[in-house]
């Protein structure tokens, strides 16, 4: 019986021990559970769904092939995410890109306007609220565009992927103090950009 992502109390450590012992089908649990999340992380970096799928698949393969290196008791999700991010970095180097994450469009650009706005519809779709929401989002994007690549990467992992600071530290390979420092600086920079927002409101 293969556990599915809906199984709440599955013991991942036990499953990994089974995989190590040769019961390879136990690895299916991890694919079912983390494929979407890993693809999201990869997509944030690569901005290409096909490449993000490839990154996720390669990450699972590398994780499986290097399972002996996985430290018992650690978080498989964190380890897998780190593998994925490293794969994406290599990929981006090959593509000769210098950014970790895509550059957000500048304020009020066509791209910002034509983005998929209705992914999470506002519970109150009144025109005023909708306009206000658009305004905030545009301003937020502007503020995010002011971040350095690393600041933005850490900011997105924290606030969009909702990872904890120790998780981000483990994924990015820096200590927790450095992660906090990046988050603090990112927030300060964004607040600076937002200071005069809707001043005449």
């Amino acid at each position, binding site marked *: 019986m293969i556990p599915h992502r809906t199984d709440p109390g599955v013991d991942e450590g036990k499953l990994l021990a089974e995989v190590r012992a040769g019961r390879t089908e136990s690895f299916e649990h991890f694919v079912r559970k983390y494929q979407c999340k890993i*693809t*999201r992380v990869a997509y944030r970096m690569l901005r290409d769904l096909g490449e993000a799928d490839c990154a*996720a698949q390669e990450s699972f393969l590398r994780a499986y*092939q290097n399972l002996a290196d996985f430290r018992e008791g650690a978080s498989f999700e964190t380890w897998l995410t780190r593998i994925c991010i490293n794969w994406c970095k290599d990929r981006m180097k090959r593509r000769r890109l210098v950014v970790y994450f895509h550059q957000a469009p500048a304020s009020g650009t066509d791209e910002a306007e034509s983005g998929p706005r209705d992914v999470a519809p506002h519970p109150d779709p009144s025109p005023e609220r909708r306009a206000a929401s658009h305004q905030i989002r545009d301003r937020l994007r502007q503020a995010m565009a002011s971040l350095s690549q690393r600041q933005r990467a850490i900011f997105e992992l924290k606030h969009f992927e909702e990872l904890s600071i120790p998780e981000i530290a483990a994924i990015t390979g820096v200590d927790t103090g450095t*992660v906090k420092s990046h988050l603090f600086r990112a927030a300060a920079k964004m*607040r600076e950009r*937002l200071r005069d927002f809707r001043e005449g409101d």
Partner: protein
Amino acid sequence: METHRATHLTDEELFALALPPAGEPEALPPHVLACARCGRALQEWKAAVRDVGEEDVAAVNARTAAEWRAVEDRTLESLRRVIPRRSRRPIVWASGLAAAVLLAILVAPGPPAAKKAPPAVSAAAHASDLSPQDAADDALLRDVARLSRGDDAGAWGGLVPDPTAVEEGRL
């Protein structure tokens, strides 16, 4: 009215509340709890943060459950392609080694032919068990073997005509 307006939170403050510094609990100022406008504005900021985060991965989120299932199946299939290959490796190794040993045996020079010759006594004893026809054949084969070893120098001429002799009219 103007006094009340002055106490409203700025967007900078709302942003700080919507995206609290990591690890710090979200402590809402009393004004936000009492003021409907600021409470609503804070919810707008939180929703905006969530929306921007999700908009970035809209292409990923647009996939249906069935599509995700198919993507997961492809990953599992790629894993299955790797797993048997790994388990076959020792067999490939062993078969390569066996082939090398076999090649070494075939290529290596054998012991001198004289050592392989069966003892005459046993051959004679063996011949006594044969039928007359088999005995004749056996004798012929023994002659051939003896001549081929060079035991009887020049004796090939006795079995086969010398081809040059025909041309020279020596026959």
